[in-house]
């Protein structure tokens, strides 16, 4: 079909990265540029040494040309990450309040703008990795609660949801099917019978 099976029910990591690149981020430009009005966004007028918010994709292009510094978000520093990690360790029922795309943002910084980070990159990297792992453990624990009706996933990032989506959705669908089969509602039954009748008619027509 037009869409390969691997992309049918979920996003690929590249697509999540693409979504993230449309978010705004603060930069400190080193040169001036006139604003541009593009069809998706309007790029603001950039003045050297004046902080300004631009889409991440533009920030990355400017960064690659060494024409700006990217300002890290307020959660991407040692102190804040340590606090978040403490919260994760002490509060076992909920996830800490990280932005929905924290994994991508931190990856973008580590790969493209590691010189703009205030703290040592290797420490930040290991903290981000720790956060990722402890959240993964919590997710796995939470999966024991999967049921046929709902699941609460506050503060879970897009990538983390994406990773468990194929599994959780299919399991929940199965559970829903099983529950419905045990206690069928009257409405459902009627629909079912109607459908079977249709099938019969079709068959006779063919013959």
């Amino acid at each position, binding site marked *: *079909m*037009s869409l390969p099976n691997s*992309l049918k029910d979920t996003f690929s990591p590249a697509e999540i990265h693409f979504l993230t690149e449309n978010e705004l981020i603060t930069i400190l430009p080193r040169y001036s540029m006139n604003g541009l009005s593009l069809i998706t966004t309007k790029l603001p007028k950039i003045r050297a040494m004046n902080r300004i918010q631009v889409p991440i994709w533009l920030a990355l292009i400017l960064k690659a040309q060494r024409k700006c510094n990217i300002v890290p978000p307020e959660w991407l520093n040692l102190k804040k990450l340590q606090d978040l990690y403490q919260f994760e360790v002490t509060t076992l029922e909920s996830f800490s309040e990280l932005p929905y795309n924290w994994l991508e943002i931190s990856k973008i910084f580590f790969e493209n703008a590691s010189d703009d980070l205030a703290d040592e990159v290797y420490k930040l990297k290991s903290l981000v990795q720790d956060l990722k792992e402890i959240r993964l453990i919590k997710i796995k624990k939470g999966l024991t609660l999967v049921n046929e009706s709902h699941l609460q996933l506050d503060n879970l990032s897009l990538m983390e949801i994406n990773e468990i989506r194929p599994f959780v959705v299919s399991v929940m669908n199965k559970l829903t099917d099983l529950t419905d089969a045990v206690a069928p509602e009257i409405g459902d039954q009627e629909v079912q019978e109607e459908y079977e009748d249709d099938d019969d008619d079709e*068959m006779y027509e063919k013959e």
Partner: protein
Amino acid sequence: MYGDHAAKLVNEAKRAQNLESLALFQDELIRSIVKETKDLDRQKDMLGQDEFSDRADQAQVFVTHLCMRRNKRCLLAYEKLRAQRLDQLAWENTEPELTNHNEIEYFKAYSDILIDYKSSFAEVDLSGSLVPPKDVFIDVRVIKDAGEIQTEYGVFNLTKDSQFFVRKADVERLIQQGYLQKI
């Protein structure tokens, strides 16, 4: 038992689902299923003549009918899977080796519809790469000698093992066709 051939066909379809290339069309198997269905039909007609008097006859007509329905379902499932595969190949712009002339016709017709549809969105390359763009410029290495190739945006001289730094949009097609390798 009736339905055994059909079960074989469905198993075959399931196996082919995970294959890279399109599997051969199961001509023999399908013909035997159709023959079986025809036999069942004849049997049903014969039973239906004596006005459904007997309960045993009624049961037999019903079961015969179920067998025929089962066969139909299996055949349709098989064909549907193949049709989906053919659609996918049409989107990827690769010509499959088909033996069944119905399928050849279907593939041609679907490709025509696709070209029709694509031409109504001239400025979007609908069958292009589905990976979101990340870099504007990329390094590519030539892996197959192709001589001079004219793209929409200019001329490349593709000699093997040479390297280019080009705009991604220009070479996407050539990467898809296997002349270039992204670095």
